[in-house]
C-alpha cells in the first residue's frame, strides 16, 4: 500500500466518523472531539473523487441542515485554501446551490454534480459533545460569536485577543467586534494592554453548565484541514517521483503550509541539521495526520 493510499483511507475514516456524528446515515462511531462544519465541508470536497458516496451523503446532510452552515466563514476559509482545494469545492458549492438555493462561495461558473440525494440524513443531535459548535450556533446564531466561544472553551492561556483567533476564519475586525459584544454581555472581561484589548473568561462556568457535555478536545480545524489537504496533495504529486525529488516537493509544500503549521505549534521538517530523508518525511506526515485531528500535539520530525 502506498503512503497516499494510507492517508486517503485515514482521512476518509475521519470524515465518515464526523459526518455520521452530524447525522449522515452510517455506522462509524462518534468521538467526543469537536467538529468544525466548514472545515469539514472543504476537506470532504477535496476527497470527493476518492469516495463519491461520502460526497453524496454529505450533500444530503447539507440539503437538510444547511441552516447550520456559515457561508461568510466558508468564503473566508476558502480564500485561505489551496487552489486545489478551492477547485475541488466549486462543484460541491454548485450542487449545494442547485439543491438548496442561495449563494455559495466558488459556485459561480462551476458545473454541479448530478446527485440524487438519499434523504437518509437526520438532523444533528446537539447533545453530542462533538457538535458543540453547532449547539453554540443554535444558541448564539450562526456567527463569529458562536465560533469564538467554541474556540476559547479550552483556551490554553489566561487571556486572548482578536489576533489570536484569526485561525477560526473571520477577519480581525469581525473578531474584535464579536469579542466586544461578548464583553458587553458580561461573558468575557476585557483589559487594555498598550493599544490592544485582551480578553479573559468572566462567566465560563455558567456557560459550560448551559452547553454541556463538552468534547474532550476542540482542535483548530481550519489550519488542520489545510495541512491535511496539503499532505494529500504532496503524496499525490510525488507518487511517481524519486525519493530525492519528493523531498524537494515536500519542502516546497511545507513552506506553503508554514503559517498553518506554526498556528498548530508544529515545526516542519528542515534540512538545516541533515539532509531530509523521504521515508522519515512520510512518517512525519502520517504521524501528524493521526495526531492533529485528535486535538493532540504535533509530532516532531525525527533525524536519524
Amino acid at each position, binding site marked *: 500500500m502506498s503512503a497516499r493510499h494510507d492517508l486517503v483511507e485515514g482521512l476518509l475514516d475521519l470524515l465518515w466518523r464526523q459526518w455520521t456524528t452530524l447525522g449522515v446515515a452510517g455506522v462509524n462511531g462518534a468521538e467526543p472531539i469537536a467538529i468544525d462544519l466548514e472545515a469539514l465541508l472543504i476537506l470532504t470536497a477535496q476527497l470527493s473523487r476518492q469516495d463519491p458516496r461520502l460526497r453524496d451523503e454529505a450533500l444530503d446532510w447539507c440539503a437538510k441542515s444547511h441552516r447550520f452552515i456559515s457561508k461568510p466563514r466558508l468564503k473566508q476559509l476558502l480564500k485561505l485554501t489551496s487552489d486545489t482545494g478551492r477547485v475541488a469545492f466549486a462543484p460541491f458549492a454548485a450542487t449545494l446551490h442547485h439543491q438548496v438555493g442561495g449563494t455559495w462561495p466558488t459556485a459561480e461558473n462551476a458545473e454541479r454534480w448530478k446527485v440524487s440525494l438519499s434523504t437518509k440524513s437526520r438532523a444533528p443531535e446537539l447533545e453530542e459533545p462533538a457538535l458543540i459548535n453547532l449547539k453554540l450556533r443554535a444558541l448564539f446564531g450562526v456567527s463569529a460569536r458562536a465560533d469564538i466561544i467554541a474556540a476559547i472553551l479550552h483556551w490554553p492561556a489566561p487571556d486572548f485577543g482578536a489576533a489570536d483567533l484569526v485561525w477560526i476564519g473571520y477577519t480581525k475586525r469581525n473578531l474584535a467586534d464579536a469579542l466586544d459584544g461578548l464583553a458587553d454581555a458580561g461573558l468575557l472581561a476585557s483589559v487594555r494592554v498598550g493599544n490592544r484589548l485582551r480578553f479573559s473568561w468572566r462567566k465560563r462556568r455558567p456557560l459550560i453548565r448551559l452547553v454541556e457535555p463538552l468534547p474532550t478536545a476542540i482542535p483548530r480545524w481550519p489550519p488542520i484541514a489545510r495541512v491535511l489537504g496539503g499532505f494529500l496533495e504532496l503524496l499525490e504529486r510525488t507518487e511517481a517521483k524519486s525519493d*530525492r525529488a519528493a*523531498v*524537494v516537493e515536500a*519542502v516546497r509544500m511545507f*513552506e506553503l503550509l508554514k503559517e498553518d503549521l506554526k498556528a498548530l505549534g508544529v515545526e516542519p521538517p528542515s*534540512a538545516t541539521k541533515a*539532509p531530509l530523508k523521504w521515508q522519515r518525511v512520510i512518517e512525519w506526515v502520517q504521524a501528524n495526520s493521526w495526531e492533529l485531528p485528535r486535538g493532540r500535539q504535533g509530532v516532531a520530525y525525527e533525524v536519524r
Partner: protein
Amino acid sequence: MNFLAGALEEALETLGELLADRGEEAEVVAIGGGSLLLLGFIARPTKDLDLVAVVDEGKYVSAEPLPDFLSSAIRDVAAATGLREDWINGGPTKLLDLGLPKGFESRTTTRHFGGLVLHLAGRKDQVFFKLYASVDQGPDSKHAIDLRKLQPSSDELNAAAAWCRTHDSSEGFEQQLELALRAFGGENER
C-alpha cells in the same frame, strides 16, 4: 555545507529531475573546484559549482543572473538538502567578457542530468583558470593546490600564462605571475 563528489552528483541529479518534472531545460558550463571534483581531478570537498556561462541557443551567455526557473530550482534543491542557496552560481562568469581560452568549447566534457545539461571545462582550460586564480589568491590558496593536482606541464603553464596576460596586463600582475610560474615549475617566456 560542503560536498564531496557523490553528494554533488546527487544534488545535480535532483536538480535535473526537478527541471525535467517542471518541463524546463537548462544548459550550463562549469569551471573550478566543483567541476574538477566531478571530473575526478581533485577529491577535496567543495562548497559550490561555479558556472562560467549559460548556453542559450548554442551560444555562451552570462550566468549572472541565472534564468529564474533555474535559480528557483537550485534554491528548492538547497532547501531540501541543506546546501547553500547559491550552491550553483555564476560567480566566475565575468571571465566571458575578456574571453575564454581558444577552443574551450571543443574540450568540454558533457554530462546529462535529466533536464540539466552540464558542460565541464577540459583539463587544459582548468589549468588556465587555476593559474589565473592562483596569481590572484597566492601560492597557498585552494586554487594553487588544485593546480598542483592537475600536474600541468611547462608548456601548459606557459600557454596559461599567455592567456592570463590577456586578462590583466598590469605590471603588478606580471610580477605575481612570474612568482607563480616559478612556484609551479614553469618559465616566464615573455
